């Protein structure tokens, strides 16, 4: 039965067809469009709290906090522009050949591994920075040579900061593992295509 191409093709064509749910796709597209707009809005609104703090509170902030806020704002703005650009381009599906697709996918996942790796390490660096910053404040409060923040406020901010940083660390570590396993699979696919 299966000695020539026509037989094989005829057998292949006998497969039972699963139906595409077109309405579900239309709903999905609609939702994706709104999600995309929402993410863009979140990206744009990201630096707003920093700008508001600087506008309304700059004269009340200690110098160290003022420097950190300005530095964060300056770093954030180019990232927002970059993310908006990425989102605009990520929305398009392109029909390239499989080899190019796998290469692009490999580079994307490799970048995701890097991003997750740096995010993971930036989390514990944040913990160290928080401890240093609030350690300085505790020292100032206890020595009472300068007016510092109250110990309760320090404990709340420090605790909150550490919990958030630790949560981000766990999240980034999970993402790094997930992307690494995906990268391994893509490396295997790539080696088959070479």
């Amino acid at each position: 039965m299966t000695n020539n191409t026509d037989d094989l093709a005829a057998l292949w064509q006998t497969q039972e067809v699963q139906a595409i749910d077109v309405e579900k796709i239309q709903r999905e597209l609609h939702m994706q469009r709104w999600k995309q707009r929402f993410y863009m809005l979140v990206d744009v609104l990201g630096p707003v709290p920093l700008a508001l703090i600087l506008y309304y509170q700059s004269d009340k902030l200690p110098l160290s906090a003022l420097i950190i806020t300005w530095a964060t704002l300056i770093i954030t703005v180019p990232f927002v522009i970059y993310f908006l650009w990425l989102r605009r381009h990520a929305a398009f599906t392109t029909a390239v050949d499989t080899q190019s697709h796998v290469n692009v996918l490999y580079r994307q996942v490799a970048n995701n591994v890097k991003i997750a790796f740096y995010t993971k390490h930036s989390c514990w660096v944040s913990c160290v920075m928080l401890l240093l910053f609030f350690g300085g404040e505790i020292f100032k409060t206890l020595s009472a040579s300068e007016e510092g923040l109250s110990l309760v406020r320090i404990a709340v901010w420090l605790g909150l900061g550490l919990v958030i940083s630790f949560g981000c660390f766990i999240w980034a570590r999970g993402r790094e593992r997930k992307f690494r396993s995906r990268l391994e699979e893509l490396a295997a696919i790539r080696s088959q295509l070479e």
Partner: protein
Amino acid sequence: MATDFAAILKEYNGLLSRVASGYEANEALRQELLQEIALAVWQGLQRFEQKSSLKTYILKIAHNRAVTHVATNARIPRSESFEEHEESSPSFTLNPEDNAAQDKQLRALLNIVRELPLPGRQVLTLSLEGLSYDEIADVCGLTTSHVGVLLKRTKAAVVERLNDDK
């Protein structure tokens, strides 16, 4: 325009379903993959510039989405369970025994295809969909002569395994 896309998806439903079945044995995941492929095709249709035939263009998107699916679900086993197997469309020209034999052969073919390395799998399934060497080369990013060699080798291996399974 939106209704045109829906009509195109309906027209190519069988083709897309077979692409999904070449990559995924699990029925639920296969349905999920089919929806993902259809979504990608819909998005891709907005950028179709008629540089190739619509069928080739759709197959390019579909195979790329399926490859992404394989990489994303790397940890999920792709072998089918006993209870869960593909059935062929019952042929009214065949008697029940022949229908069962065809069903068995189709299952064997699908299992063999899913175990093939990606280039061989793509080249073979695209050929079974009636694409020319040039069109297959365009989808896969291979040279036409490479497609010819690969297809001949893959087909021979598949037929041999199918005959062994009989």
